């Protein structure tokens, strides 16, 4: 399986990453890409702090778990850190499989885990003040459902 994990300050090209994962791989029938974008709902900027070393290892552990659960041909995860403004890309998850069910499920699984388990913290700037974003119960619940379900669908 092709596996790419990158943490970077720079922007990424979601289209180029998807094309790179599928290129020359006629066994891939389904490609799912999730792009997370910095929203502008009242914030002027956001700074993403991360735990270097652990972030890569934690993401790699979840990619391995996704590979155990679904039949995957490739995974690309890119997570940015540093200061971002509304409209900027934050995160990219691309999953490739023979069939769509596995690609969709793995992409959702990886996003749910990135939200709750990968060591990143967001600090938002609103006007003159800045505050750390609180973890959302909804995100914990979204991640939790993967422990309950045994539906390793294709």
């Amino acid at each position, binding site marked *: 399986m092709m596996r790419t994990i990158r943490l970077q300050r720079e922007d990424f090209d979601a289209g180029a990453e998807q094309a790179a994962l599928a290129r020359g791989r006629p066994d891939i029938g389904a490609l799912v890409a999730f792009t*997370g974008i910095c929203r502008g709902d009242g914030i002027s900027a956001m700074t*993403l*702090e*991360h*735990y270097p*070393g*652990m*972030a890569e*290892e*934690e993401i790699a552990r979840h990619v391995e778990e996704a590979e155990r659960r679904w039949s995957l041909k490739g995974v690309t995860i890119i*997570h940015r850190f540093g200061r971002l403004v509304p409209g900027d890309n*934050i*995160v990219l998850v691309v999953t490739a499989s023979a069939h769509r069910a596995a690609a969709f499920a793995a992409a959702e699984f990886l*996003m749910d885990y*990135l*939200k*709750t*388990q*990968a*060591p*990143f*913290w*967001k*600090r938002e700037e609103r006007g003159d003040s800045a505050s*750390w*974003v*609180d*973890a*959302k119960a909804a*995100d914990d619940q979204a991640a939790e459902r993967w422990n309950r379900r045994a539906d390793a669908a294709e």
Partner: protein
Amino acid sequence: MKLLYFAWVRERIGKADEEVEAPAHVRTVADLVGWLSGRGEQYAYAFENPKVIRAAIDRAHVRADTALAGAHEIAFFPPMTGG
């Protein structure tokens, strides 16, 4: 052992990392939080609500009752908000 702090835990303590020698009775992550809280008001403030503090030993998430034995790098941080 080396301690790392992230996000508002780092801000409240006022440093990103430090080397400490904990006394022998500090055996678990929870013991370490308790001992650190007694080292000064910035530590007490950072750890005022231990329930929301997450910890990692050598880059893997651990629970508060995990033993520190053999740990090289211990990190404290709030719940993650990546993605």
